[in-house]
């Protein structure tokens, strides 16, 4: 009844199609990391010329510990964003976990450090569970849920802290040593978190449940069709994000020693910026934890540079916002270019 025209099975171009497209893709993906390191290098270069103190061992250590806290938050945020959600409550969770855990020393100075960490992580986990249930089972958009919990949890934090705050004197040196201990000048905690980043990256790449998150973010309805337990996965992503924010809170407390109800204020923007700058697509489906951690390093280096140069901390937020904007527009450009390259390469069949 209808005859279709035969299509040729020969590729239009004689050149081998496969390697070229893979090269293009990996080049583009690597360009992102080169870009970040390029910006990082320039920043370090100019700042250290203007203010040599910037490259002092002490300052580098500060940058590393700050990055460590953010990298922890970034791991969780990456899981969440990859699944096409967002967790804006991480800053508040960090704040409340920091206070509740370190405050234990004010109640019982002899308390075990393990209990302190467990409580911090537990508080974060509970917050993440609340977020996750509302998003995954309540079907409320994560932006709405976590924007609400950002304020609710911060409000609770203010209530709990009340007039008192935790000061360094109240904290045992063993606890303060968590953030300050170092080998060969590198904070031990940074090494541990770097290992966690690599572990998370390995997990996301090599386990089904990790791939599920990418699938969910890439095409939620298709994820349902292939039988991925989407609600469960999204719930777990939020729980992990919460727990890591709790852990980051304990480390934050150990590092700063003084904890009041403003701890972690505004971190959510910085973390989202770090993750997106590090190449995680804001609408889910792609990106890596390693990239996000590198993004965190960039952001904290910039913040530190501004501080060293005597620029008001107010600019931190502005810079984070600007970077976010640049990264997102860059991503859109890259994505459409990538699509074009891939489309161009597959012309051997199909129009």
């Amino acid at each position, binding site marked *: 009844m209808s*005859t279709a025209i035969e299509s040729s099975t020969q590729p239009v171009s004689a050149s081998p199609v496969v390697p070229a497209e*893979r090269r293009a893709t990996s080049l583009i993906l690597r360009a992102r990391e080169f870009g970040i390191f390029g910006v990082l290098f320039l920043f370090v270069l100019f700042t250290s010329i203007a203010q040599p103190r910037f490259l002092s061992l002490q300052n580098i250590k500060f940058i590393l510990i700050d990055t460590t806290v953010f990298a922890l938050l970034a791991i969780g945020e990456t899981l969440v964003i990859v699944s096409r959600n967002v967790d804006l409550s991480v800053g508040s969770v960090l704040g409340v976990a920091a206070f509740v855990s370190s405050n234990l020393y004010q109640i019982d100075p002899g308390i075990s450090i393990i209990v302190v960490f467990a409580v911090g992580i537990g508080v974060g986990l509970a917050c993440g569970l609340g977020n996750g249930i509302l998003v995954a089972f309540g079907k409320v958009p994560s932006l709405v849920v976590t924007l609400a919990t950002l304020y609710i949890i911060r409000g609770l934090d203010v209530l709990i802290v009340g007039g008192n705050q935790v000061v360094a004197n109240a904290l045992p040196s063993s606890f303060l040593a968590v953030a300050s201990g170092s080998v060969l000048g590198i904070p031990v905690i940074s090494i541990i978190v770097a290992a966690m980043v690599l572990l998370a990256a390995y997990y996301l790449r*090599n386990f089904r449940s990790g*791939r599920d998150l990418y699938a969910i973010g890439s095409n939620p309805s298709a994820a349902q*069709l292939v039988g991925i337990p989407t609600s469960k996965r999204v719930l777990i992503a939020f729980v992990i994000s919460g727990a890591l924010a709790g852990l980051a809170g304990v480390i934050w407390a150990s590092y700063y020693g003084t904890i009041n109800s403003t701890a972690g204020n505004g971190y959510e923007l910085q973390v989202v910026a770090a993750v997106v700058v590090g190449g995680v697509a804001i609408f889910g489906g792609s990106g890596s934890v390693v990239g996000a951690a590198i993004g965190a390093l960039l952001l904290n280096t910039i913040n530190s540079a501004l501080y060293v140069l005597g620029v008001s901390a107010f600019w931190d937020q502005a810079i984070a916002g600007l970077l976010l904007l640049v990264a997102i527009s860059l991503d859109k450009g890259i994505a459409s270019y990538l699509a074009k390259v891939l489309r161009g390469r*597959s012309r051997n*069949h*199909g*129009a």
Partner: protein
Amino acid sequence: MTADHNADDFKAVALSLQHARKYFGAVHALEDATITLRKGEAHALVGENGAGKSTLVKILAGVHVPDSGVLEIRGQQIRLNSTREAIAAGVAVIYQEPTLFPDLSIAENVFMERQPTRRFGRIDYPTMERSVEEILAQLGIKLDPRRLCLGLSIAEQQIVEIAKALSLKAEIVIMDEPTAALSSAEVDRLLAVIESLKRSNVAIMFISHRLEEVYRICKRVTVMRDGRYVLSDATSNVSQDQLVRAMVGRDLEIRSATSDAPTGAEMLKVEHLTEEGVFSDVSFSVRAGEVVALAGLVGAGRTEVATAIFGIRRYDFGAVTVGGKRLRRGAPLEAMRSGIGLVPEDRRQQGLVMEMSIARNVGLGSMKKLSHFGLLNSGRENSLAQEWGARLQLKYGRIGDSVETLSGGNQQKVVLAKWLARSPKVLIVDEPTRGIDVGTKAEVHRLILELARQGVAVLVISSELPEVLALADRIVVMREGRLVREFARKDATEELIVEAATVSGGVAA
């Protein structure tokens, strides 16, 4: 032969669905659907757009639970509450619309949730990629399993879906219009794969609007109309006419389509259009009242030329002129303002806003006409959509329903309606009847010719030669990105067009 035939009648039943009913609110998608699939046999399911075929598929896939009805798989009554359960029961489904993850590799798409693993549950990428490579080779397709699905053409997406279904090694394979987006070489390969599945005793359900495919590979056929079972018989017992009558429920009047409209001034002129490595030196023109067909292989660059004319795609050299006015390149808004309309090939992605209503989607192209002082008149929007809905035999619940709820073929019709309602001066239609049922096909042809009669310059891209011959006043053939031949309708035959499209070194016109 007769012995053979008798033996086939005793083939074991793999799956049977009896008296299934499924309502979506007020929409009665399925009233009373019945189908029986046997092992080692391909069974066709045919019916008009909106007859309920895909709804039936989704019941077998565990996507929808029927309101009533009995499902048996291998003689056991079963209730499929999720797609997981259907997969576990040995049912593999190729959905009408591709359901891929653009950010993941082809291999991962094929094996998602079933990735081969090594110790500790780690995914074994090399094994996975090798299996996918093998399946793709079996389908005769050169695609790198490691490549992302982002940017795959619809045909390629469909092939990944087919690979996915094959990788399941399921005993029951259900294919909802797997051939709609494929070129005939790819169709041939798919049909060969179906043959080999039959030999390994797999039960297959095959949905297609191309009846010759049904006759080629299916032993039996079931016809559905308005959500009801109409007939089920061996394909050797029903003629194509009987089949069409059963689908449509009346005799189909085939109006012979001719446009002998006098052609007017040159409306669309394309000169030396070139995109490095994609198409080069493409020149042709379309007059008012004329229908020109762009024929050629899938992949010859026809869609690319069309999208370049419309400004979605940039070209390197050349010029596009509409009504004497030269268009800037890469400016689709200007193209639209100058009166070009483009019905894209990939309608779902490029032509529709799935969450919006039918009326809004139809009206999207005609906002100016429909609004008063910048305010949209939704009454007029609705009546415009209703008018076009009626002309294209659109099957819908309410005009305010979201396009998402329409059947695949009916979604195609909405995109057609959107551009036809705009009354363009130049209309470019890429594969106008893809996924559209036999009854409406003739109607779409009639509409295109009527537009030409009203003075619209029409450029049709079609891989179906009878369609090309039925519509076109002139036929321009492309091969490997170049124009190779031009025919007047009276000089063209299917053979000549195929020859021009495939034989290299042929006479260039």
